[in-house]
Structure formats: C-alpha cells, structure tokens
C-alpha cells in the first residue's frame, strides 16, 4: 500500500455542483428540449418475434394531414459489417442500423420497422397505425438452449460461429465460442476430495433506468446537424450515427443532456439516426421519445444465461479446480457480454487449474446492451453459489473458504494481468469482522455472502481547464455524469489547484467542445477522466507559478504553490490565483491547460456482500432484512456518492435475485413490459443498506482511485439466493427467487 496522503478536498462530502438544478426540476434531461417548429416522431414496431418483412406500405400514413416524413430502413445507406467499440462493449454497425430500423427481417417483438414525424403526438400516433406491413411469420427461438440445437430455426443466414478451430460452413445461432484455461483441469479434479457441480440459470433483466430513451435532433444541410439526447457516451452516439448515415463526424454535434440513469443501457443508440432521417426529410427539428413499454420491449436488456459450474477442493479448503460452461443470450444480434463473463467468473480465486468455455448465442429477444458490470453478475452468481455450496460440503465458513483461496497482489489473473495491490482479502476480513456477520438469525431466516470482481477499465479522456480572470475555474470534460461524477471532478481539480471546490465549475461539453472521450461506462470516469483533470490542473499550477516567477523576476524553483496562492520563497511575497489570472492578459495570455490520455492500467475492484433474508413459508415471499455492502474503492473521492454506488448496485442486484425477469408467452411476446409487472425494488422492499468503504490504493491512479460503479451489482445475486437456500434448506440455482419459485422449492423439500 502506498503512503496515506493528507487531502484537503478529497474525501469530503461536498454538495454536488449540479445539485440545485436537480432538486428544483431545472435540470434538462433527454425529453426536455423543445425546438421551434419541432415535429413529434413515433416508431412502428413489429407484432411478431420472428418474421420476414414482405412489404412496407407507408402511403396512407404519408397522406395523413400533419404527417411531414416517414422513414424505413430503405432510407439508410447500405453499409458493410464493421465493428465499432462502444463503451465497454462493441457493436457491429450494420447490426446496429438494422436494430434501429429492421431490414428484411424482424427479429423480436417490438423491433422497429418504420417511423413517422408529424406536427403533433396525436397525429404521429395515428400515422403509425396507418403504416401497413406484410410479414411472413417464422418460428421464434426464445431460449439459449433451444437456439443452439442443430435443428433450431436460424436467425441470420450469414452468421457463422467464430472462435472454432475450423471455420464452419453452415450458419448457426452461436455467434462465438471463447475459451480460457490454465493448468490441467482433469488433474485438478483428481486432486479434489470434494466436488460440487450444478447448472444455473438467470433470466433476461432490464437496467430499469427511470428515464426512457429520448432525443431531439435537427438536420442541417450545411453540415451542422445537432443531436440532443440522453446517453452515457455522446462521442459514441456521434460515431455510430455518422456510420449508419454515412456522414462525416464533424457534421454532427451531439449534446449530452442530463441523463436519467443508464447502467450500461444508454451506451448504444436506438433513435438518433431515425430521428435525423426524419428531420432531413421534413426539414424540421424532430423529437423522438420511447415510452416505458418500448423501453422494455425494444431497448437492450441484460443477457439471460445458462451456466454449468464444477468446483473441486481438498478437505482443508484448497480449491484445486474450477470449470465453467457459460451460455449468454445476445438477443437479436451477436454481441452478448459473454467475454467479460468468461474473464470474471473465477477471478476472485487463485486456483491452479481452470477451464472456462463461453458461448454468445442469438435469440428472438431485443439485442442485449451492457448492464452494470456486463456479463459478470450472471457468471459470478453461478460461481459464487458453487463456492457457497462447496463451503457447506466442507463444513467451512464461506468467508474462511474464500480467504484461503483469495486472489491477492501477485496473483496471475486468467484474463491477462498479474494483480498489483487489490482489496479482496481486506473486504473479506471486513465482512468477517462486521457486527452484521456476527449477529444472530431468527426463524425462517437465512444468511449468506458472496464476492464480486470487475475490471474497471480506463479508456480515453480529454479535458480542458480554463482559468477565469477572477480566479474561478471551468473544468471542461466530456464524460456524461450519470451518478454525480461532476462532484468528484471538481474535488480532484480543487485538490490539485488548491482552490475551493465551490469556485470550480465542471461542465460536460458537447462533441464539438472538447476532445474525444470514451463512453461513461466500465466505472472509468472518476479513474480516467479524473486522471486527465489532475494532469491538466498540474499544468495550470505550473503556468500560474511561471507567471508569478516572471512578475517577481525570480526563477520557477523559487515559487511555491500553497492553497491556491503563489509564494515567493525568498521574500514571502504572495500572489493569489485571482491576482495571477486577472493579470494574465499582460503576462503571457489567458491561463488554460488541456490533457488527453488513454489511462494506463485499470482499477480492479472486489466487493463482498452479506445478506440476511426472511422467507414466508406459506407464500414463498422473501424479504431482505439486513444487508451489508463492502467494497474496495481504492480511494473514495466523495464517500457519499461511493456509498451510493454500493447501495444502488446492491438494490439492483437484490431485484435481480428476487423479482426481476422478462416473462414471454409462447409467441415470443413479452408479457410484463411495465413497472407494475416487471417489479424493481421499491422503498418499502428494502432495509437500510450498510456500507463499508475499503481503501487499498490503486497504483495506477495518483490518488489511488478505483472505479466503484459496477462491482456492487455482482455479489447480491449469489448472496441473496444462497441466503434463501440457507433459510429453506433447498439450493436455489435459478433466478429470480420469486415467491412461486421459492414456494415450489419449499413444497418439493416437504414432499
């Protein structure tokens, strides 16, 4: 561990700079912009989960008074297959275009087939009903195990399994196979005294951000098209929209509105190219907003999975072998987060013999999107459940079993790096020593724990810091703020500049106003954009010292920078930042600095959660009665928002464990496309969520920061379901542990 630094602003609970706007309703989100002459757009969607499009007749819609434009996939230029990196995941740009407007086939119920723009919402709704689409229905494939059968209906005639030794000659619903291994898996199991082996299942779930996707766009013939939208990555909106419409990047300006939640779901696009086509055809600005039902049916949920896990250990608890086969649903187009799942699944453990296979499989559901630590909760649910079962079989405490096998500094991670300082052991110790873990349980109650790992990548960030003549500061960044990151950006700038955090204004510039920034995702922003801010702020300090040195006619090494003031070490003369900036025009020009970087390394972070549940034996309803989330933050910049990430991830994971699932009928139609039936946790469903911030500094960041947004959603799935298992004495391997499923388990036990 590096030495503990003495910070002035870092670690404080400051008021966030966008706070007033957010609590007064003034903050402008995706659907909040209206432009003069603006039209309202609506999307026509497929009533079938799988069908060939024979014909689309838009003539009646076009003839309706007040309809100004209609768009179909025929309005998109033909583009070739090409992989585009978007946030933590990548997308094939041709697939993305076809997901925005279906071409030739519809691949899920709700798939967009056409769109209209009209002078009012009412007319747009009427026009959508007038679009006539002729389909030839095909059999939908709704389950990953069905989809991989040899005789399964094929979604894409041109999809051939990648990652096989030989290139296959027949198309398949398996888009990719991936394998990671080390050691000798058979020898590892031969060494084991105890082996657990089980299949696990997780459902399709939705990120459930409260703000539906929305954009307002204006196409300009002179090359200044504008897109206002709620996104985690406006540079990726620009890149993907430009590719789909065959435009140059400089001809599109994307303005990131305030964003009402994303959790990975707003790292891709559904509306923007469609709206821009409608704007081009009508010559008017266009607003296109999804309703909640469309969000559930046609935006990207998180993958459903089927996994098989086998773990072997010696009697003393030493794990000798870990094996997994992981199947991920990609939805309609290839590209599930199978790869990170394979890379994460056993990473909390230092084990000699490991073998993991992963499969990315297309099915007739909406194309999945990233969802908070994409791929990891599903895989680690299976692995952590297996570890808990192993602890039972060994009659060992599950924390002790994990401590005995925990990854630590120097452990070679199967996905590549040898870990530098990491905090899993510290998190496990904190769990073991918590009052929660030592507290007694009552009747019908159960407790369990689980660990979770996420990479927390860096990627690219660009920032500019401009000093105002009065010594206040504008920090120009390009990382959309989904959870309060402007607060941590202002605090890091304040720390370096020695200027009060209230004098620092962080802004999210549009794509024309700052250099390129990767999407806000992968818990990268405070880590990587923060690093760029620190670098730029250090440059600003250097410039201000140079100006002071010039004024005093001394050398730079004779100037100190103390709490935002230049101090002449020879005679104690002082010049404040405000004085230096006010005179900047006559001492060399305005003071400004920029930094653009691709962050080296990452901030691997581990979490350990402790869950207590109580099960109603008559109904199968599960209540979480006590919950503790422990996680390594490296260094918590704003502890309040770090705790908030832990609590929010825990709550989402609890929902995933207990209630949330897409329920389809036999025709592939989603039956619970609303918050009433897709039930995310309510205030009345949850207890207070206790948090412990562990700080093992990340050697790749100047303050030791690790991303904190994602690891917290991983442990709840296994911690909660294993707690249910312990309460009822039946192992729960299928999520969610909803009342019908738990009641069935209780009844099967009693029979």
């Amino acid at each position, binding site marked *: 561990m590096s030495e503990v630094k003495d910070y002035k602003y870092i670690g404080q*609970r400051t*008021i*966030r700079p*966008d*706070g*007033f*706007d*957010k*609590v*007064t*309703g*003034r*903050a*402008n*989100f995706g*659907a*909040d912009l*209206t432009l003069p002459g603006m039209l309202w757009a609506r999307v026509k969607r497929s009533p079938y989960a799988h069908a060939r499009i024979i014909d689309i007749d838009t003539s009646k819609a076009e003839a309706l008074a007040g309809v100004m434009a209609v768009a179909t996939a025929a309005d998109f230029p033909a583009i070739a297959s090409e992989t585009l990196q978007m946030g933590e995941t990548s997308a094939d740009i041709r697939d993305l275009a076809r997901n925005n407007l279906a071409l030739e086939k519809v691949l899920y119920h709700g798939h967009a087939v056409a769109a209209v723009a009209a002078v009012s*919402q*009412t007319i747009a709704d009427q026009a959508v009903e007038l679009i006539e689409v002729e389909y030839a229905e095909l059999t939908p494939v709704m389950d990953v195990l069905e989809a991989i059968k040899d005789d399964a209906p094929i979604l894409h005639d041109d999809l051939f399994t990648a990652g096989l030794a030989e290139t296959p000659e027949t198309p398949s619903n398996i888009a990719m196979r991936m394998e990671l291994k080390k050691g000798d898996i058979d020898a590892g199991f031969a060494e084991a005294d105890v082996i657990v082996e089980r299949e696990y299942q997780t459902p399709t779930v939705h*990120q*459930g*951000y*409260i*703000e*539906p996707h929305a954009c307002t766009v204006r196409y300009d013939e002179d090359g200044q098209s504008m897109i206002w939208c709620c996104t985690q990555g406006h540079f990726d909106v620009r890149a993907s929209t430009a590719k789909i419409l065959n435009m140059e990047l400089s001809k599109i300006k994307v303005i990131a509105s*305030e*964003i*009402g*939640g994303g*959790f990975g779901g707003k790292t891709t696009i559904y509306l923007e190219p469609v709206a821009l086509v409608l704007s081009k055809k009508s010559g008017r600005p266009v607003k296109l907003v999804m*309703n*909640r039902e469309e969000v559930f049916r046609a935006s990207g949920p998180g993958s459903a999975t089927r996994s098989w896990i086998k773990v072997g250990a010696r009697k003393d608890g030493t794990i000798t072998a870990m094996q997994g086969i992981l199947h991920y649903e990609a939805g309609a187009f290839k590209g599930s987060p199978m790869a990170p799942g394979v890379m994460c699944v056993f990473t909390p453990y230092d084990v000699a013999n490991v073998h993991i296979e992963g499969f990315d499989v297309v099915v007739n559901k909406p194309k999945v999107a990233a969802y908070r630590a994409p791929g990891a909760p599903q895989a680690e649910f299976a692995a952590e459940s297996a570890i808990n079962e192993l602890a039972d079989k060994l009659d060992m405490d599950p924390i002790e079993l994990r401590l005995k096998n925990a990854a630590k500094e120097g452990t070679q991670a199967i996905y590549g790096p040898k870990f530098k300082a990491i905090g899993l052991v510290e998190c496990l110790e904190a769990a073991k020593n918590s009052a929660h873990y030592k507290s007694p349980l009552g009747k019908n109650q159960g407790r369990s724990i689980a660990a979770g790992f996420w990479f927390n990548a860096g990627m690219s960030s660009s920032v500019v810091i401009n000093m105002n003549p009065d010594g206040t500061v504008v920090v120009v960044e390009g990382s959309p703020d*989904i*959870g*309060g990151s402007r607060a941590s950006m202002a605090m890091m700038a304040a720390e370096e500049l020695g200027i009060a955090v209230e004098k620092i204004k962080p802004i999210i510039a549009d794509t024309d106003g700052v250099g390129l920034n990767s999407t806000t995702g992968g818990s990268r922003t405070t880590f990587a954009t923060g690093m760029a801010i620190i670098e730029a702020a250090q440059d600003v300090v250097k410039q201000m010292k140079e100006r002071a040195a010039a004024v005093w006619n001394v050398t730079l090494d004779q100037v100190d920078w103390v709490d935002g003031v230049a101090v002449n070490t020879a005679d104690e003369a002082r010049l404040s930042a405000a004085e230096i900036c006010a005179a900047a025009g006559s001492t060399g020009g305005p003071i400004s600095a920029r930094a653009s970087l691709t962050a080296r390394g990452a901030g691997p972070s581990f979490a350990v959660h402790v869950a207590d549940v109580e099960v109603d034996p008559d109904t199968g309803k599960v209540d979480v009665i006590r919950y503790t989330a422990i996680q390594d933050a490296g260094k918590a910049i*704003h502890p*309040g*928002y770090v*705790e*908030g*990430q832990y*609590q*929010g*991830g*825990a*709550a*989402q994971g609890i929902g995933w464990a207990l209630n949330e699932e897409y329920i389809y009928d036999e025709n592939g139609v989603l039956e619970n496309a*609303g*918050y*009433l039936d897709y039930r*995310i*946790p*309510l*205030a*009345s*469903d*949850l207890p*207070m*969520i206790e948090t412990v911030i562990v700080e093992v500094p990340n050697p790749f960041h100047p303050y030791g920061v690790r991303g904190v947004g994602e690891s917290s959603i991983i442990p709840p799935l296994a911690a909660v379901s294993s707690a249910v298992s312990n309460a009822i004495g039946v192992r729960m391997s299928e999520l969610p542990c909803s009342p019908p499923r738990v009641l069935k388990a209780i009844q099967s036990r009693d029979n």
Partner: protein
Amino acid sequence: MAKTHVSTTINNEPVEFLCEPNQTLLDCLRNELQMTGTKEGCSTGDCGACSVTVNGRLVCSCLVFGVEAEGQNIGTIEGIGKAENLHVIQQKFLEHAALQCGICTPGLIVATEALLAENPDPTEAEARYYLAGNLCRCTGYDKIIRAVMDSAAEMRGTA
C-alpha cells in the same frame, strides 16, 4: 381535434392553456406549459416521476387529464423552493447525497412534501411505504429515506 381551454392555478399562479381532451396533465405541464421539472418515467402511474399535488393531494400527473385541472390548485416541483432559498427537503436531499441521476428527484421531493404535510413525524416504515410509489433505480433508497427522516426532524424543530 378541437382543443379545450383550461383555467387553473399552478404553484399559486393563475394559468391558462389549451389542450386536447385526451392529453394528460403531465403532457400539458411539460409540452403545453414547458414546465419540464415534472418527469415522465412510465405514463402508467407506476414510477411516480410525474408526482404533483392537486389541491394538496399527491397524484401521478400521468393519470390525470389536463382538462381535470380546470379550477383546481396544482402543485409541482417548480413551486418548491428556489435555488437561493431551497426547501428543507431539497437541502437535505443534497446533504445526504440522496440523488444520483436525479430523474426521480423532483417526484420524490413533491411526494416527500406531501408525506410530511400529512404526517410530520413518520416512522422509517411509514416513510418507505408512503414513497413506495416513487421508483428510484440509482440509490437503493437508503440515502433518500435518511434525507426524508432528517427533513421531518428539522421541520418539526427537533433536529
């Protein structure tokens, strides 16, 4: 469709607007009156992002027709506090970091004000059940409930 003229009171100011008979109060607030502080999360009364009061009673404005506002007194987030003089509830939400993305925040603040008007001294369970109609996906509610309980204490003068 012929539009209907509506005379109402919003945040104690007289307001008139035209709307179609099938437009919701939420739609009228946001798109006829440009009062976008009230948010749309579901339009089916499940998420509470569009919470407003009608004559002091907490409702989802997506479940009320615009024409029903005729002669009523509507309360929205724009009527609660000002940036230079925030309401106690708004201040406590900021102090407790009780918001992350902020889309549910206006609705939760409107709902919390209604809660504390009805019940100035709620238990934690009462607060949780009263606010169960206001979904938040970011925070896990912990800090929201703390902000609500702290607001209640301060408003009672017992903080």
